[in-house]
Structure formats: structure tokens, C-alpha cells
């Protein structure tokens, strides 16, 4: 049986790791974005997400009670200790795929963080209220870009259809409730992720239809990220790059 503290810690890792892993992936666009304006926008998004990571992981470290910091959790854990969605750790691929992933995640983040604002846990509510403003802007930007590119040229449409086909099997993991979610829901900290599913489907369907894209006709969900049981092979490579400085020079600061 999981203690309330352990469930809260796992919940906070999921929140923090989602932001951290997508933040790092998004930061990989810095300097190689398709146009200057998009490059800067992506860097801003990455910074928003890293800022959210700091809040979630600092609280996670406090709940863990082992005297660690947000930095320790970010840079000194191995892949199997990460609790992010698989969707967020797969490589960026092309710009269309990255923006599709962002859009599918934002469509979840907005209703999810909206609900979390009324969490019984005041710190969770506060971090969510702050993050929601950023998520709303990310959603506006990512959904509009998906629509522009999907309903764009024949070539951009083909890229976006391939992107949604690629991302789709990973997206379902967002709504796979488990024992941590049950415990957190019972404590009034967060709703069950599955309760957000219909809102998400509605939002995504409306964007895909405006983008003239076909929603993949499958409910199959790749799982194993948010419980850490089976990450993709990509997370280890990403962490190797992200963590190399702290691994090589432990405790380095600037």
C-alpha cells in the first residue's frame, strides 16, 4: 500500500518530468527552428516549461524529504526514475511532428491544470494557476500552427497527417489511470486523468477537423512512461546529453 506522501511524490514527479522532458526536447529547436520568429517562440515555450519544472520538482524534493533539490531530481536520476509521458520523450522529428506533439499535450494541459487550480493541496493549486497562463498561450500557438500546416499545402498536409499518425499511439497514455492517480484523486489533489479524456478528444477533434486532418481510428495506447516501467530507448540518450555536465562535474554551479 502506497503512503499518501509517496503518492504525492509520484504525482509531482509526473508533473515535473512532463514539463522537463518536453522543455528539453523543445529547447533542442534553439538555433535550428524553421524561421527566426518560430525559433524564438519555441525557445520561449521551452523556458516556460523549464520554469514549471523548477516549481514542480522543488516541491517534489520537499515532499521526498531526503534533502534533495529540484536540480538533483532533474540531473541525477536515471531514465527508469523518470515519470513523464512517452509522447514527450520521443525525438522531435520534423517541425510538424514536434508541433503536433505540443498541440496534443497542450490540449491535455489546459483542462488538466484548470482542474488542478482547485486542488485540495494549496501548493499544487498555486503552481497550476501559474502554469495555466503559459499553457493557454502554448495551446493557442500550437493549435493554430497545426491548423495552418494541416490546411496548408499538399506537402505540409502530408507532413501533419504523418505527424498525428505517429503521435497518436503515444497520446492515450495521458488517460491511463493507475494506483497513484486513484490515491491522489481520493485525497482531492487531482481528478482522475481519464475524467479529462472527453474534453481532450473534443478539443483535438475540432483542431484536426479544421486542419483537414484525419483522426487515427485507434485507441491503442503505448504505456510505460508515467509509471517508469518501460520508457522508450530515446529517453536515456536525451538524459545523457541533458545531464552530462552534472554527471561530469558533480555540483557544478555558475
Amino acid at each position, binding site marked *: 500500500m502506497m503512503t499518501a506522501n509517496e503518492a504525492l511524490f509520484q504525482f509531482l514527479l509526473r508533473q515535473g518530468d512532463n514539463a522537463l522532458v518536453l522543455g528539453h526536447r523543445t529547447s533542442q529547436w534553439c538555433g535550428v527552428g524553421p*524561421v527566426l*520568429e518560430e525559433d524564438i517562440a519555441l525557445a520561449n515555450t521551452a523556458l516556460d516549461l523549464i520554469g514549471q519544472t523548477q516549481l514542480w520538482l522543488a516541491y517534489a524534493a520537499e515532499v521526498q524529504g531526503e534533502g534533495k533539490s529540484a536540480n538533483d531530481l532533474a540531473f541525477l536520476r536515471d531514465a527508469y526514475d523518470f515519470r513523464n509521458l512517452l509522447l514527450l520523450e520521443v525525438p522531435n522529428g520534423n517541425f510538424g511532428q514536434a508541433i503536433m506533439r505540443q498541440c496534443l499535450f497542450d490540449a491535455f494541459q489546459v483542462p488538466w491544470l484548470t482542474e488542478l487550480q482547485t486542488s485540495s493541496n494549496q501548493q499544487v493549486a498555486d503552481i497550476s494557476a501559474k502554469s495555466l497562463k503559459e499553457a493557454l498561450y502554448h495551446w493557442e*500557438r500550437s493549435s493554430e500552427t497545426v491548423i*495552418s500546416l494541416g490546411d496548408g499545402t499538399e506537402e505540409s498536409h502530408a507532413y501533419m497527417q504523418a505527424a498525428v499518425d505517429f503521435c497518436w499511439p503515444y497520446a492515450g497514455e495521458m488517460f491511463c489511470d493507475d494506483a497513484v492517480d486513484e490515491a491522489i484523486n481520493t485525497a482531492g489533489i487531482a481528478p482522475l486523468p481519464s475524467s479529462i479524456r472527453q474534453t481532450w478528444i473534443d478539443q483535438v477533434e475540432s483542431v484536426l477537423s479544421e486542419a483537414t486532418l484525419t483522426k487515427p481510428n485507434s485507441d491503442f495506447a503505448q504505456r510505460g512512461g508515467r509509471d517508469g516501467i518501460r520508457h522508450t530507448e530515446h529517453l536515456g540518450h536525451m538524459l545523457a546529453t541533458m545531464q552530462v555536465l552534472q554527471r561530469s562535474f558533480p555540483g557544478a554551479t555558475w
Partner: protein
Amino acid sequence: MSASNEWPLWEIFIRGQHGMSHRHVGSLHAPDAERAIKNARDVYTRRNEGVSLWVVEAKHISASSPSDKGPLYDPAKDKIYRHPTFYDIPDEVGKM
């Protein structure tokens, strides 16, 4: 990519605080006005620079020609009486 395939250029104006006027801060590329505002938000207001944005497609701005500067501006140079520098402005008036 040929120039005709590129997004149009937009001039960006930001109002720094309420009561001030919009000021030109630079330009950027965007496919339409809405995206120009979003891009301007990301490119020019990252450090809390503004409370309002205007975007104007650059082709809609008519500019005076540098070769006309004699006839346009020189006549104003020797008309010192047009400058309201002989008035004392009370502090309460604030920024003018």
C-alpha cells in the same frame, strides 16, 4: 526559397505602459496579422516590455524620401518661435 514565397514583413509597435504612445521597436515576418502579433509577443515582449501591441504590414507604410529632406525639413530650422520653450511647465502636468 524565392522572395515571393516568403512571409510579408510587419512593423511592430509596442506601448510600454498605459498613457504612453506606441513606439516602433522593429520588424518581423509572419503569414498574417494575427500571427504577427503572436510573433511580436514572442520576439519583442519577452522581458515585460509592453501592455499593447500594434502590427502594420510594412508595405502599407509610406515613407518620406531622403532626397526631399531639404524642402521638407529645412524651413522649420530657423523658426525658433514655434518651440514652446519659453513656457514654464508645472511639475503636475507630468510627461508631455
